[in-house]
C-alpha cells in the first residue's frame, strides 16, 4: 500500500478511536445511574480498542504483531462483558439503580440474593 493510503487509514482509525473514547467520557457524565453509565463505559471501550489495534496492524503487518493484536482484542472482548455483568449485578443488589427510569424490572420477583 502506498504511504499516502496508510497515512489516511491510520489517521482515520486514530480519530475513530479518539471519538469513541470521548463518547465514553461524555456518556459517563450524561447518564443518570450506574447501569446506564455501564453502557457508556463498555461499548466504546471495545470499539476504541479495535480501531487502535487494527491501526497498529495496518502499520506493520508482521505475524507477531497481528497475533498479539488479535490476542488483545479477543481478551478484551471476552472479559469486558464479564466485568460489566458483575458490576451490573453488584449495582442491582446494592440498589444503585433508579427504578423510576426502569422500563421492565425482570429481577424484581425473584428476591434479592
Amino acid at each position, binding site marked *: 500500500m502506498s504511504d499516502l493510503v496508510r*497515512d489516511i487509514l*491510520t*489517521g482515520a*482509525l*486514530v*480519530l475513530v*478511536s*479518539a*471519538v*469513541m*473514547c*470521548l463518547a*465514553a*467520557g*461524555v456518556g*459517563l*457524565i450524561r447518564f443518570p*445511574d*450506574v447501569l446506564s*453509565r*455501564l453502557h*457508556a*463505559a*463498555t461499548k*466504546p*471501550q471495545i470499539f*476504541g*480498542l479495535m*480501531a*487502535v*489495534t487494527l*491501526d*497498529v496492524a*495496518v*502499520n*506493520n503487518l508482521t505475524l507477531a*504483531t497481528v497475533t*498479539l*493484536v488479535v*490476542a*488483545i482484542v479477543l*481478551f*478484551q472482548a471476552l*472479559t*469486558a462483558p*464479564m*466485568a*460489566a455483568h*458483575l*458490576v451490573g*449485578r*453488584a*449495582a442491582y*443488589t*446494592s*440498589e*444503585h439503580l433508579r427504578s423510576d427510569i426502569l422500563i421492565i424490572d425482570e429481577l424484581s420477583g425473584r428476591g434479592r440474593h
Partner: protein
Amino acid sequence: MGIVIAIAGVLFAASALLAVYRIVRGPSVLDRVVAGDVLVSTVICALGAEMAINRHTDNLPVLLVLALFAVLGSFSVARFLPKRDRA
C-alpha cells in the same frame, strides 16, 4: 498528520478529564469503578494511537497488561462490594 495528532490528543484529554471528573464526583463506589475502567481504556487507546502514528509496536504488550488491569479492577470491586452500600 499533525492535525490528526492535535485532534486526537484533545479528544483523549477531554475524555480522560471527564472520567476523572466522574471518579471525583461519582456518588457510589460503582461509578468510580466504571469511570476507572473508562480512564484505563482511554489510556489504552491513546497508547495505541501513539503507536499507530509513530509506526512502532514497542508497547503493544503494555496494551495487553493495561486491558487486564482494567478488567481485574472491576472484577474485584464488584465481587466484594458490601450488600447495602447506599448510592
